[in-house]
């Protein structure tokens, strides 16, 4: 039934899928954010409150790296991140998320672009997470006025953000993408073709 579509053309189901992924990870982010509000209250007297959102920052990037892994074509990471930002706005977040989403999206896209959109694996996802982390940190450096902060503190915050970016958007996204591909629902996508022949035995060994 498949009509010949251009390699880079967006189909309606692709757009809805990245949108729903955006919704899913926005929920995860909000959940972890509210959980960490308690932590923030505890950290405030020590002046360490920003670590509260730094430790969950990587969750922001997950939808984009997962979507890029699934569809494996240029532009996916950027579009996903911007769409996710618009969804956040619809959910009642402040308009600032749009610019943040754009900056992060460019970073995420760069990560796959340096591999000329040929690699969609743990390495490229980690590189993508790293770029997103660097660009988003530069952006928060301005919006949050971090120039007023001590260098040691800045370095610590950057290190934490880099760590969670790699953990969530790199490692966890990779696991999720592979897990999803193995279930067989991605038959219509490049990632599905790559992991379809994986034996069910592999899955059970990993789970054990």
């Amino acid at each position, binding site marked *: 039934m498949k009509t010949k579509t251009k390699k880079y053309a967006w189909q309606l189901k692709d757009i809805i899928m990245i949108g729903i992924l955006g919704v899913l990870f926005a929920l995860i982010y909000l959940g972890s954010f509210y959980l960490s509000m308690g932590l923030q209250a505890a950290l405030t007297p020590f002046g360490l409150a920003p670590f509260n959102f730094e430790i969950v920052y990587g969750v922001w990037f997950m939808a984009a790296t997962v979507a890029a892994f699934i569809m494996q074509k240029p532009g996916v990471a950027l579009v996903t991140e911007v*769409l996710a930002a618009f969804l956040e706005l619809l959910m009642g977040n402040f308009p600032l998320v749009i610019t943040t989403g754009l900056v992060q999206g460019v970073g995420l896209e760069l990560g796959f672009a340096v591999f000329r959109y040929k690699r969609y694996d743990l390495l490229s996802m980690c590189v993508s997470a790293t770029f997103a982390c660097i660009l988003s940190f530069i952006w928060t450096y301005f919006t949050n006025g971090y120039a007023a902060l001590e260098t040691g503190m800045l370095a610590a915050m950057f290190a934490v953000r880099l760590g969670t970016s790699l953990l969530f958007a790199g490692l966890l996204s990779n696991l999720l993408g592979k897990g999803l591909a193995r279930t067989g629902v991605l038959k219509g996508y490049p990632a599905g073709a790559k992991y379809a022949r994986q034996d069910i035995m592999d899955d059970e060994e990993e789970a054990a």
Partner: protein
Amino acid sequence: MKSINPSWKLIGILVPIVILAFFYNITLNLVIFGASLVVLAFSRIKWSTALKVMIPVAVLAVGMYMTGAKFHAGANIGVGAGNALLSNAAFENGLQLGSRVLAFAGFGLLFIMTTDMMELVRSMEQQLRFPAKFVYGLLAAFQILPNMQQEYRKTKAAFWARGVYPVPVSPKLLVPLMVKAVRWSEALAAAMESKGFDEKAGRTIYHPIVMRPADYAFPFLTTGLLVLGLLFL
């Protein structure tokens, strides 16, 4: 505020925010926050909702104040950190960071409290010419939100019933949800297309959103006011 075209309101809020990010001015920050509240006072908004939004903002502002006061550029962490808190520079630095949060929140409140989000989406299609595929795809995904929340609870309950207690971000929990995401997207796209959704066909508009001169003027007004503020405060 409520009657301004949503897309142009968004632009009129985003441009000043981006400019403001590059300046440090405590007075201006506080003036922006105050002015936003004054405008809101004349906009007939639901204050209970606004207060709910302000709680995390207030927590964040206090948090940033403490961070700015304790770890200001040039301070030594540890030695003398207690004294640094009392110094003038530390106080100012904390205020600098805390007031920024308030200024951004003021802009944010101004937008979200006076904008109907469906109107925003419609206006993105009509005024900003976003492709219909993206506009309606976005709406379809947005409407999945309650289903996704329910699905999350169901999946968690299913694991609990088996005596498995996965952490909130565990792949065990997320992979079934992502399977749902793919399935739903296919079903929704099929449903829309089977009922005649076509990107290329001409569309009629059910809720036309009109543009008036005031709408075009809004971004220039906000940006102009901000530049004046930067010059004189």
